[in-house]
């Protein structure tokens, strides 16, 4: 059987266009054909997790079955009682598979875990979000079929954007008026074509045409060189246009299906500071970390009055958030340093914002300072991506091998 990875080649897009046509027509008649949507979702999942990737398909099925049992058990428990330790334990059990998948390559020299599959992180984020909202009493009903639809929504299964259960279910059950659907459809198609430009032209230009030669030159030169600086910018551009392009496909496809999956990027390189950057870059991930880790941790510390200073609490929150994010990317020194780098950057940013608030009169603010802020933020971010890229690691090994 054939295997096709999401949004990689023209055939995949052709298949999306053809199979979604009945969905479009139905929505224009203000109807939903749930059975058909489920059928094509199953088809696309089979395409990505079948064929030569069948072992990933098995891993996905086992994972989803076990996690849904866990969610259901916790939901039933929560109806009766609300012990914090049971909650922590449930979250821990939910992330065990992800932890194994992330740690395995670090222990066995890059070997991939057999329980892993494409998109395991993103499903885990959705599940943990659900468990936390069940604890808060925000999710009041457990519906098996809708949970499956939410977790396995095919347009976003491989790399997000990370949607939220209640938001998704709201869209899934709602019948849009023709005008509203047309608006969504128009945007969806536009996003997909913008995605083509991002991923298959701009990212191709940076990543495939420029990058290999620049990387080679930087390696040949060794140490600090202009080639390394060029590599930093090229890699950053490639990362953005590749990932933003993919995200546009995922959001566009969702829109066509009448699901308003949240956007992932909002002009991140125009951010005037690091804090604002994280409100614009990989937004569904950073908002997930903000809402489910940072705010909860801060809430817990403040409520229990564990630490007095608000600044210390905020900084501790940032360190926790970005360290976890670093480890989540993978257990390598450069991902963890990347996390620490951003934690420090945002702590400094916060200190500066406090200073600015106090000395508003003395600090100039004009077009030049605003441009300078964007310039500084952009370069800080690109430098962090150079760490993230692992290229420094490659250079070190290259140097040792010589």
């Amino acid at each position, binding site marked *: 059987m054939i295997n096709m990875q999401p949004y990689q080649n023209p055939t995949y897009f052709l298949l999306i266009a053809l199979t979604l046509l009945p969905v479009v027509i139905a929505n224009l008649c203000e109807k939903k054909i749930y059975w058909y949507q489920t059928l094509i979702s199953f088809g696309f999942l089979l395409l990505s997790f079948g064929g030569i990737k069948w072992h990933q398909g098995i891993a996905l099925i086992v994972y989803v079955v076990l996690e849904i049992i866990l969610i259901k058990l916790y939901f039933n428990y929560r109806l009766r009682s609300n012990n914090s330790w049971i909650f922590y334990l449930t979250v821990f059990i939910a992330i065990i598979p992800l932890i194994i998948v992330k740690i395995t390559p670090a222990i066995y020299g890059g070997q991939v875990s057999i329980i892993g599959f494409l998109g395991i992180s993103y499903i885990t984020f959705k599940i943990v979000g659900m468990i*936390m*909202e069940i604890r*808060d*009493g*925000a999710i009041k009903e457990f519906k098996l079929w809708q949970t499956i639809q939410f977790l396995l929504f095919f347009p976003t299964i491989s790399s997000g954007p990370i949607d939220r259960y209640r938001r998704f279910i709201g869209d899934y059950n709602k019948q849009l008026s023709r005008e509203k659907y047309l608006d969504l459809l128009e945007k969806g198609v536009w996003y997909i074509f913008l995605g083509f430009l991002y991923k298959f032209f701009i990212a191709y230009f940076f990543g495939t045409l420029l990058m290999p030669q620049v990387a080679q030159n930087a390696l040949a030169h060794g140490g600090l060189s202009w080639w390394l600086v060029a590599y930093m910018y090229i890699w950053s551009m490639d990362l953005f246009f590749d990932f933003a392009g993919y995200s546009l496909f995922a959001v566009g496809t969702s829109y066509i299906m009448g699901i308003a999956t949240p956007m992932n990027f909002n002009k991140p390189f125009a951010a005037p500071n690091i*804090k604002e950057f994280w409100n614009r870059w990989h937004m569904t991930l950073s908002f997930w970390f*903000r*809402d489910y880790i*940072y*705010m*909860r941790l*801060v*809430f817990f510390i*403040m*409520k229990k009055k564990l630490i007095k200073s*608000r600044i210390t*609490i*905020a900084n501790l*929150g940032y360190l926790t958030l970005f360290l976890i994010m670093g480890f989540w990317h993978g257990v390598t020194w450069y991902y963890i340093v990347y996390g620490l780098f951003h934690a420090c950057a945002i702590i400094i940013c916060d200190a500066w*914002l406090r200073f600015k*608030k106090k000395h508003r009169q003395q600090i100039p603010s004009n077009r030049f300072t605003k441009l300078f802020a964007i310039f500084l933020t952009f370069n800080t971010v690109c430098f962090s991506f150079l760490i993230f890229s692992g290229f420094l690691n490659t250079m070190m090994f290259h140097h040792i091998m010589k």
Partner: protein
Amino acid sequence: MKEQIIEILQDLTGSDEVATNLDINLFGAGLIDSMATVQLLLELQTQCGVDVPVSEFERSEWETPNKIIAKVESLKA
């Protein structure tokens, strides 16, 4: 209730703008961040007796003083 909330916001943001412009976007203007949000939720809990779990906090529903007042009043009712 209204005065109480505005007072909390003045304390949190250190700005009087929240009292004069009740439609100011607190997040957009950089007056409130996640940290201040948590403080706001805790203050609402202790001072107004409304319990808002973090997952019920949808930014777009809480972004202006007016929206916060309306939200708290609806939760109180």
